[in-house]
């Protein structure tokens, strides 16, 4: 292979004048983590609400849940980000549209909200499945104890359902982190974006992408290890997760 490897490139100053190429990549890594965390919070909040709606006996509620999930699941994430970023400000009343366009850091907020809503549909499906997997006696017992539906969810169903779906939630969280890279298309310079920028400035393609790859692997290992610890400490004896 006639490619000029230069692993020292990471310690050379980058053309923006602020630090080395390695600093660029680390800034990208931090932005990836920040975006993914905010997106994950949004995904959990909306996913929980929709997941509960899907599990309620009311037909209207489950239709709303079904429509929401189908809406966010049947369009590519990239197209959804374009809708939020390019289309939404034009369809709003003039004042609101202008305000949206002038928000500082628009790519960051769009990415976090866009990826968050996209992932919330997946969280909702997992949660609804988790609630459905609980024995019917759980809900009946909650009612027999005099809990209202809301209390039943709050104190009985959700705490168990969330622990059961912890393993699939881990992979959804990893997907959230990976999906933030799609926001490169609306101008968010996260880890993949910084690797791409480094490649364009320095022509050291493979070093740049190797570094980004190593960083993504590191995030994965940290998350998987952390979640395994969480799973073990939250396991309910006698349930699937508590082997």
């Amino acid at each position, binding site marked *: 292979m006639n490619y000029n490897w230069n692993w020292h490139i990471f310690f050379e100053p980058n053309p923006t004048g602020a630090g080395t190429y390695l600093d660029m990549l680390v800034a990208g890594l931090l932005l990836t983590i920040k975006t993914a965390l905010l997106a994950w919070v949004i995904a959990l909040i909306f996913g929980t609400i929709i997941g509960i709606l899907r599990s309620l006996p009311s037909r209207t509620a489950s239709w709303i849940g079904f429509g929401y999930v189908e809406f966010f699941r049947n369009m*590519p994430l990239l197209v959804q980000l374009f809708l939020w970023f390019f289309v939404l400000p034009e*369809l709003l009343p003039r004042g609101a549209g202008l305000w949206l366009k002038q928000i500082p850091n628009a790519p960051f907020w769009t990415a976090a909200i866009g990826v968050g809503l996209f992932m919330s549909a997946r969280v909702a499906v997992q949660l609804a499945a988790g609630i459905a997997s609980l024995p019917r006696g759980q809900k009946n017992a909650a009612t027999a104890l005099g809990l209202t539906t809301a209390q039943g969810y709050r104190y009985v169903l959700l705490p168990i359902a969330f622990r059961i779906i912890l393993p699939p939630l881990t992979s959804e969280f990893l997907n959230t982190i990976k999906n933030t*890279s799609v926001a490169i298309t609306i101008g968010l310079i996260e880890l993949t974006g910084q690797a791409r920028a480094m490649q364009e400035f320095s022509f050291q393609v493979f070093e740049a992408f190797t570094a980004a*790859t190593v960083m993504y692997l590191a995030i994965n290992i940290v998350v998987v290890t952390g979640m395994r610890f969480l799973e073990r400490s939250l396991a309910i004896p006698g349930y699937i997760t508590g082997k």
Partner: protein
Amino acid sequence: MFDNLDFDVIRRSLPYLFLDGMSFTLMLTGLSALGGLVFGTLIALMRLSGYKLLGRVAGLYVDFMRSLPLVLVIFWFYFLVPYIGQWLTGAARPIRVGAFTSSLVTFIMFEAAYFSEIMRAGIQSISKGQPAAASALGLTYSQSMRYIVLPQAFRNMLPVLLTQTIVLFQDTSLVYVLSIPDFLGAASKVAQRDGRLVEMYLFAAAVYFVISCVASYGVRRLQARIAIVR
């Protein structure tokens, strides 16, 4: 709010959007799904082969691919494929590779990791008696896989494989980062040329939505039909 929109731009660009863009997207989806299935099955067989080293290598490949974002993998292969081509053909310099070939290689290698996990689950869902009966009948390992285990595994996993293909169909839109005119790329080109972002992106979203909805409805019907065989 819809007064200054011009939806006629969609009608004018329909031939370009579908004959060029959508045919690229569908071709890429179909060939990647086929290639991903073939390589994915091989990887699954490696993992289940009982040879420690082979299984370890296959497992590492799957874990590695699954922990990287697709966008990064697309960039990797875009720059790597010319060098791989040079290495394979023994040429003096990195060979030129077209947009389609480059993205096809990317998606086959990437999807193989996901398809292999599905096929592995499918193979493991076959009861032990099946391969045991096959070897009692005197079939070799490859005959037993070819005639007994894989057909059943494939059939059991068909709905999951098709669902993964719908995800793949949506994911092919990410070749946008290489400015390749797939369906979304074509829509975006027209959008930027005519300054009609709103109309074109709404239309692209609607097309993806309808196709994915119809396809997943089809998968649900299929699942209901083949689920009760046992």
